[in-house]
């Protein structure tokens, strides 16, 4: 049985910041990630981030990930476990079950647990949605940005949120032709600056359109043709409005859902909050759930931007360390600063949905 003071599950923006915050207050931290390198989704983000300097604005996600990972690696208070997936939490004795390198089973007892497992991609039901050539946006980014492999030649992007817009831009940078970006919503969901970036490349953005069906090439069985159609203001498709695209790739970017399995196992009180992407845990201002000693941060607490995930991670890390008695006198000041940053990030019109969602989960 491994013992640690603070176990941080997930080495993305929230988990990295949580580890640093807790360790810098004096706690011994074990950071566990299922991938073979730290950074989570940051490693795929080649665009510059928004926000303020506190969230490393104007620096590319990939560079933020590298910087935070190197800070974590340098920190003597943080132990890192890579290729390690936390698959179980036993509420009776608070033990975590971890599968290490797909062969070892390790048990860990932590005084505090910060769950920063992120989110998973949603998919879209339509005829033939399982054809080769139909990817989630995350898979396209992994192929392209991590492994240098192009997903295909001609792409239909489904989803005009920030992920759909950003991945379209990255595809064009990689020399792949994005034929169109469609979204069933009447308006573009992502930041307008991202939309203008892809518009300037000549990519049409078609709002109020959804996928009708996909068709395979008879020889290869892989995607060859996609048909879209318009939806009315009640989201019902309108026959006769079909458009056909000859594409070998369809990229689905229709949102994320929190990866909350461990929270369910732990018995955290969960609520379904559409504004936050699905089932999320009730939590207090310090990011502690209804199970004492279990904290959350980042997309698992509600799907939002990486900038706020970093701030939530910091808050959870500070709070977990403080609850163990670690406080060099700076806790109140640091916590208030993070709360101010979070409020600023969420206070504008684009934060309205998040504010509405959070009002249902903060206790």
């Amino acid at each position, binding site marked *: 049985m491994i013992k640690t003071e603070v176990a941080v599950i997930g080495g993305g923006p929230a988990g990295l910041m949580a580890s640093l915050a807790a360790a810098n207050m004096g706690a011994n931290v074990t950071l566990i990630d299922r991938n073979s390198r730290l950074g989570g989704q940051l490693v795929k983000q080649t*665009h*510059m*981030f*928004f*926000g*303020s*300097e506190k969230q490393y*604005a*104007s620096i*590319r996600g990939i560079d933020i990930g590298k910087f935070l990972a190197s800070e974590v690696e340098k920190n003597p208070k943080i132990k890192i476990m890579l290729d390690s997936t936390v698959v179980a939490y036993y509420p009776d004795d608070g033990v975590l079950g971890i599968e290490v390198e797909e062969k070892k089973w390790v048990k860990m007892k932590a005084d505090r647990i910060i769950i920063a497992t992120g989110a998973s991609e949603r998919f879209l039901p339509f005829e033939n949605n399982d054809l080769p050539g139909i990817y989630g946006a995350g898979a396209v980014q992994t192929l392209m940005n991590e492994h240098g492999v192009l997903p295909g030649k001609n792409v239909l992007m489904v989803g005009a949120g920030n992920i759909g817009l950003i991945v379209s831009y990255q595809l*064009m*940078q990689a020399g792949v*032709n994005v034929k169109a970006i469609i979204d069933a919503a*009447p*308006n*573009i969901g992502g*930041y*307008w*600056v*991202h*939309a*203008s*970036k*892809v*518009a*300037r*490349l*000549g*990519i*049409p*953005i*078609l*709002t109020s359109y959804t996928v009708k069906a996909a068709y395979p090439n008879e020889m290869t069985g892989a995607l060859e043709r996609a048909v879209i159609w318009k939806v009315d203001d009640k989201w019902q498709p309108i026959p006769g409005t079909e458009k056909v695209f000859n594409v070998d790739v369809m990229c689905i970017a229709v949102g994320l859902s929190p990866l909350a399995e461990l929270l369910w196992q732990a018995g955290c009180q969960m609520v379904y909050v559409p504004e936050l992407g699905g089932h999320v845990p009730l939590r207090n201002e310090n990011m502690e759930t209804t199970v004492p000693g279990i904290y959350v941060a980042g997309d698992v607490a509600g799907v939002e931007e990486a*900038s706020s995930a970093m701030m939530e991670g910091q808050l959870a890390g500070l709070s977990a360390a403080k609850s163990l008695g670690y406080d060099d006198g700076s806790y109140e000041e640091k916590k208030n600063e993070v709360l101010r940053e979070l409020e*600023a*990030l*969420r*206070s*504008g*019109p*684009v*934060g309205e949905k998040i504010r509405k969602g959070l009002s249902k989960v903060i206790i």
Partner: protein
Amino acid sequence: MLAKNGIPELEELSVRIPPKERLAKGPVVMVECFQKIPCNPCAKACKTGAITLGDDINNLPMVDYEKCTGCGLCVSKCPGLAIFVIDETYSEKEATVSLPFEFLPLPEEGDEVDVLDRAGKVVGKGRVVKIRNGKYEDKTPVITVAVPKELSMIVRNIRVGGDK
């Protein structure tokens, strides 16, 4: 319409066009930021205090065109790639547009390139007169392209090597 296709209508754009008198004096910034999002690197990058946000990071950038020297230090720092520098005094018939360009191959100074509007449509030819691509730009090169004067408010992208 920005909310529908990412392309600003003239009406949406008009609030961001620098005053005529200022354009007549030399290079000046045009901040094509239309949505209140939490973001402040433009104001941080500005050394003359021309771009400010006030006390709320969600505010749209406010530009004091008299303070702006058209230095362009903000262009590569905007995460939205939404800042351009326009010089309508470049020559009798030409204006320059400085724009962020994150594509390969990069053009070289002196190259003739296709120039594109905000919808990505080719609207003519331009000549690359300057490329800034140092450590400061950090992989967001800033390309200055000379275009016919009447295209100074139209051209917002370039294409190197023609249509694929």
